[in-house]
């Protein structure tokens, strides 16, 4: 029997606000001495009360809008109740029935649409370090703002998951809401993986949650392993069940962390310490041009190919730089295509003055052979020296022209423009 994979993804992203989600402690905790960025609120001391960081809410709304979500007019925080040593209050302030952002989507390069179920606001937990038989707790991270983005089970391969995660990371960085660094834990992925017989439309009656995986590469490996494991289990007639698994990079396999019998009952209820959020859809936030829009525009306005654009829009800084250089090139008739080629090929450092880039491109251009007669002479010489390749080309071997281009380049000492060379060679060989 053939099987297909069903995957849904939950992404947690830590926001880069100055202060924590529910208290005025600095959220800049990374690498600091343990328990030096805490107060009664984020330590969960008796008598402490949360108070909402407005900037975090705005950033959550930005993320929602970037994913095409509807921003809920009314939104509530709720308490998610469970016991764990990294959770100081015994509950996490999160959102459940009234999330801030609902129903969005993200389009993959293939055109496939991944539906986003929700993007909601919550708080991070403390950091646990395991040492011998003990766990050491540092509450510096406790209550740092987190946004959780949850998709529908729309993925059918690990590659789609990788692309989605990378696109999401790029969006977070474009928005400037997070460093979204996986290794530092700014961005965390959880995948719900199951398989079903091909053609079946209903969801499988179980799903395996892959958690605590801190790189795209490991996540892809874990999903692939898991799909294989599950298909094998199906084929052996074993019944798969709801469970949580982690990734062992040394053994290159997933391992059981928690089974269904221990599944949580989070007892969500509205957080009584926080009044509701109202008219959130009226909040004004700035949205930059997002990677997908930028890509379209670069392709159509500058007549660049998709691959080049992909590199140019990788970061908002790179894209802005490219457009600055294009602007600088206008007076000197240096085209966006030339600029894109130059920037992509030379891996230009963004600190270089755009005018300097234009100068470099022009120097290179002015040195090229501009005399058509001389160009033709060199091309003829290259064909004479390599009759076999010329014959092969004439016989239909397209690739054979590469050797002739190489010949022209050698004879001109690199002063021949590649595009022009191809044109002339084709003319002479016809």
């Amino acid at each position, binding site marked *: 029997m053939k099987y297909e994979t069903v995957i849904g993804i939950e992404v947690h992203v830590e926001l880069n606000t100055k202060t924590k989600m529910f208290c005025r402690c600095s959220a800049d905790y990374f690498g600091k001495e343990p328990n030096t960025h805490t107060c009664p609120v984020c330590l969960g001391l008796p008598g402490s009360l949360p108070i909402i960081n407005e900037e975090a809410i705005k950033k959550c709304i930005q993320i929602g809008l970037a994913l095409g979500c509807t921003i809920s007019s009314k939104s509530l925080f709720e308490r998610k109740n469970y016991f764990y040593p990294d959770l100081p209050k015994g509950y996490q302030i999160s959102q459940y029935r009234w999330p801030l952002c609902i129903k969005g989507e993200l389009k993959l390069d293939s055109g496939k649409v991944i539906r986003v179920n929700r993007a909601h606001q919550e708080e991070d937990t403390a950091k646990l370090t395991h040492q011998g038989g003990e766990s*050491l707790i540092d509450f510096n991270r406790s209550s740092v703002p987190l946004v959780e983005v949850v998709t529908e089970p729309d993925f059918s391969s690990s590659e789609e998951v990788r692309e989605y995660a990378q696109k999401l990371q790029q969006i977070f960085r474009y928005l400037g809401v997070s460093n979204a660094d996986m290794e530092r834990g700014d961005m965390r992925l959880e995948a719900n993986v199951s398989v079903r017989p091909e053609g079946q439309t209903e969801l499988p009656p179980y799903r395996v949650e892959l958690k605590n995986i801190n790189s795209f590469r490991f996540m892809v490996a874990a999903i692939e392993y898991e799909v294989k494991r599950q298909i094998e289990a199906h084929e052996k007639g074993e019944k798969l069940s709801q469970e949580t698994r982690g990734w062992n990079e040394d053994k290159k396999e997933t391992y059981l*962390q928690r089974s269904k019998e221990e599944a949580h009952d989070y007892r969500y209820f509205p957080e009584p310490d926080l009044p509701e959020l109202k008219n959130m859809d009226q909040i004004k936030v700035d949205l930059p041009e997002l990677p997908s829009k930028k890509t379209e525009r670069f392709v159509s306005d500058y007549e660049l190919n998709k691959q080049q654009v992909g590199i140019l829009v990788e970061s908002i800084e790179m894209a802005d730089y490219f457009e600055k250089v294009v602007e600088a090139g206008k007076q000197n008739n240096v085209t966006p295509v030339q600029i894109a080629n130059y920037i992509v090929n030379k891996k230009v450092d963004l600190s270089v003055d755009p005018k300097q880039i234009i100068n470099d491109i022009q120097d290179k251009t002015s040195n090229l052979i501009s005399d058509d007669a001389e160009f033709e002479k060199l091309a003829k010489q290259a064909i004479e020296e390599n009759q076999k390749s010329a014959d092969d080309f004439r016989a239909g071997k397209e690739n054979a022209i590469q050797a002739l281009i190489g010949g022209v380049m050698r004879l001109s000492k690199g002063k021949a423009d590649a595009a022009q060379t191809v044109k002339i060679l084709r003319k002479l060989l016809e």
Partner: protein
Amino acid sequence: MKIDVKRVAKLASLPLSEAEEEKYSKQLSKILDYIEQLNEVDTLDVEPTFNVTGLSNAMREDQVGDCTIPQEEAISNAPVKKDGFIVTKGVFNE
């Protein structure tokens, strides 16, 4: 109304003795029977009240305040601590 005392106690992380389980089972049944009277009330078109203040959008600016306390105070009430950390008996990495 009978409740599964063992399951609830586990959810609540309350270690109960057998005697306590038995006692709470009886008492909670009696209390829940009393609470059953709420079923008499028609609440079909009634919005729930979670907060009586009528307030909304209580938010603060993203400015660091002077709430942060020294490490020593942060961990002062913890029964076990080490090198500035609070210590608990080992838990697996989830």
